[in-house]
């Protein structure tokens, strides 16, 4: 009976310890919290198996494109799938209901950034597609590790990095409506030894252009968002021939600078990441004890607000719409892509 008493005491201590855990543990949904914010979802693995006889292993990236053509606006969600047959394919989903479309392109870009061009087409890699049907239109266009396609009044600007460049080189090329090259510029992000990368670029609703740089120095990671009034401002900055975007030459920037600092390294395998949205920068901490925390850094504030913590694991892949309307999550274990309501609104 002495053993029974000891075990009884252990039972009591365990119960107290259990219920003194944080609220997140107590209230976290064992099925995963994200479905509480789900608006719509599609099981990509099942859909691809059923409709295309493809066995999806994982999703490497998510993006979107919107183009107006003939008075109609077309919106698509794209994802880069890695398949059991060893191929990497770009597939498209209808924006409204995430219905799997027939579109398919063999594409291997790490930075998935489809965009619209001045022709009303949707450009992906070296190919443009009719926005209404996603049927190929023009090919052999400018290529690269594409980050962004901007529709100027008469010029397409491509912002990209290439795999052959040092990580801190970025390129911006201008093209006319017929995809004739009209300008070309290359910039180095910093003159220092810090290894900066241009991770994301996005154009906000009011025309501002935001570039998001990651500094991965191993311990104290840093993400800096530079916001320009419009694409022409950014183009002018390039055209001015300033050798460095930041560091000693950051005075050249007429943009707002927002610094997001977290422990750890952005873009590292630990999973720390950040995205540009209309309301600021969303930064994700690494996943610890099956939980991930997102912090929103509004433009101009430099301080995190509107945090959100949820049950998560390393198999989740995220995408935040620059418009800030929704965010997306791909759950590797279930094969499900889910469109989620924002917590910051």
């Amino acid at each position: 009976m002495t053993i029974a008493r000891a075990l009884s005491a252990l039972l009591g201590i365990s119960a107290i310890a259990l219920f003194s855990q944080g609220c997140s543990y107590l209230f976290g949904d064992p099925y995963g919290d994200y479905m509480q914010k789900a608006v719509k979802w599609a099981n990509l693995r099942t859909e691809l198996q059923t409709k295309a006889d493809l066995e999806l292993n994982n999703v490497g990236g998510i993006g979107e494109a919107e183009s107006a053509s003939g008075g109609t606006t077309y919106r698509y969600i794209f994802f880069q799938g890695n398949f059991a047959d060893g191929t990497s394919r770009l597939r498209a989903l209808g924006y409204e209901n995430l219905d799997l479309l027939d579109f398919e392109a063999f594409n291997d870009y790490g930075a998935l950034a489809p965009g619209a061009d001045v022709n009303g087409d949707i450009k992906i890699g070296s190919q443009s597609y009719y926005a209404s049907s996603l049927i190929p239109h023009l090919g052999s266009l400018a290529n690269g590790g594409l980050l962004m396609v901007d529709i100027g009044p008469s010029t397409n600007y491509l912002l990209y990095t290439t795999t052959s460049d040092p990580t801190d080189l970025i390129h911006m090329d201008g093209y006319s409506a017929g995809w004739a090259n009209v300008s070309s510029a290359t910039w180095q992000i910093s003159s220092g030894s810090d290894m900066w990368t241009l991770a994301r670029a996005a154009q906000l609703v009011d025309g501002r252009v935001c570039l998001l740089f990651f500094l991965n120095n191993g311990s104290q990671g840093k993400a800096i968002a530079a916001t320009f009034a419009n694409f022409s401002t950014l183009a002018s900055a390039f055209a001015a021939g300033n050798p460095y975007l930041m560091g000693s030459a950051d005075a050249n920037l007429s943009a707002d600078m927002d610094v997001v600092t977290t422990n750890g390294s952005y873009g590292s395998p630990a999973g720390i990441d950040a995205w540009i949205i209309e309301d600021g920068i969303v930064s994700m901490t690494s996943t610890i004890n099956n939980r991930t925390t997102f912090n929103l850094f509004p433009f101009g504030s430099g301080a995190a607000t509107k945090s959100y913590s949820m049950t998560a694991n390393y198999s989740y892949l995220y995408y935040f719409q620059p418009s800030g309307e929704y965010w997306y999550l791909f759950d590797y274990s279930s094969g499900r892509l889910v469109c989620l309501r924002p917590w910051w609104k």
Partner: protein
Amino acid sequence: MRPKSRGRSKPCLAALALAVALLLPSIAVAEEAPTAALDDAAVLVFPVITLGGDSASSAEGGDEAAAFGAALKAALGRALSEFSFTVKESSEALVQGEDLPVKASSIARAAGAGWAAVAFLEVADKRIAYTLRVYEVSESALASSAGFSVYAGLAALPLMDDSAKTVASKAAAYRASPARGVGEIIQYRISLTSPDEGAAVYIGAAGAQGSRAVGIIEDGFLLLPYIPFEKNTRIVLSLSAKDRSSIDIPIELGDEAPKVAAPALKKVDKGNILVGTGPGRLLGLGMTYRYFFRPDWSFLFINERLFAGFDFTAGSKPLVHAETWEGFGWYLLFPPSSPFRAGACVGGGFLFSFSSADSPTTSNYAFLDIAILPIEAFCEYRFKSELTLWLSARGAYSIDSSGLLGRGWLGNGTPDLSAGLLWRR
């Protein structure tokens, strides 16, 4: 044949008489006054009891029996002396019968001797048969015995010596044995009252090897048969009845006869209901019904959980889950009477979830996951009432990927913990 044998026996008798005279030890004649305390070293040696045979049919046979009897008694006394007994001699002749141990013990007790030694001898057809016995006086119990049958001649004498030494050594060993009752024996019968009519009463813990049935409760009462337990010892009585839990009642045996009042036997658990919740399921409740197919030990269970996942942040809507788990369970540690018990379950479950999210591939908003439950460990603590706190840790594995869960352990590896209450008898 008989005359011939008689003629040959005369020289033998003479030699035997001489041998007896030489070997006869000095045996003190016992004083037969009663004494209060028994001398545990003293042994009272009685005259040899001659049985039937030639001694009863002829004078010569009687002489022969007397001579061998004297030799046998001498050998017995000598051997007992060798094994540290103080030998006293009784002149009282005993007669073989069922009450011989009691009579011998009574006489020895009166003489203050703790032991009584008796020899039996029969001479017939030129052979002698003899038996030697030593009794423990306090309990009139046989402590040692040895016997032999041999040709009636001088060759019998060393054999008598051997037998005497054997019986003396056995008696000495018994005397030194720790198992030998040395305490005072109770002189009363134990009585027991119980509200459980017809309950069986055992000496020894319920189900224990060697427990012994001693009666059943009639009219709420049982007077146990007399059993000579040693005083100031502790025994265990157990009661058991159909559909009720057995109980063990320890009893201290003192000077007075204990009157034991047994509490009412509790009904065994044929089924009970658990209610509780756990981390991740605080916005809901779980309920389990256990049906015991082996009362108090093994059960089938069905567990229903209804809860909502909701993190109270902007943009979230409750995600409702309804789980049905079924399986087997076993108590593995501690008996039903223990306030603390522990056990394990195995089983499986059908897990329904209901979301407001739309999907192009399904027309409804329900998800179904199927999971197995390879292990659930639980423990319980019963308070003084029947109210019992229980705690469980579950490791469940989703085997179907068509629902909300992918294939893998539920909760991303976080143990599925639950706590709650049940009423356990």
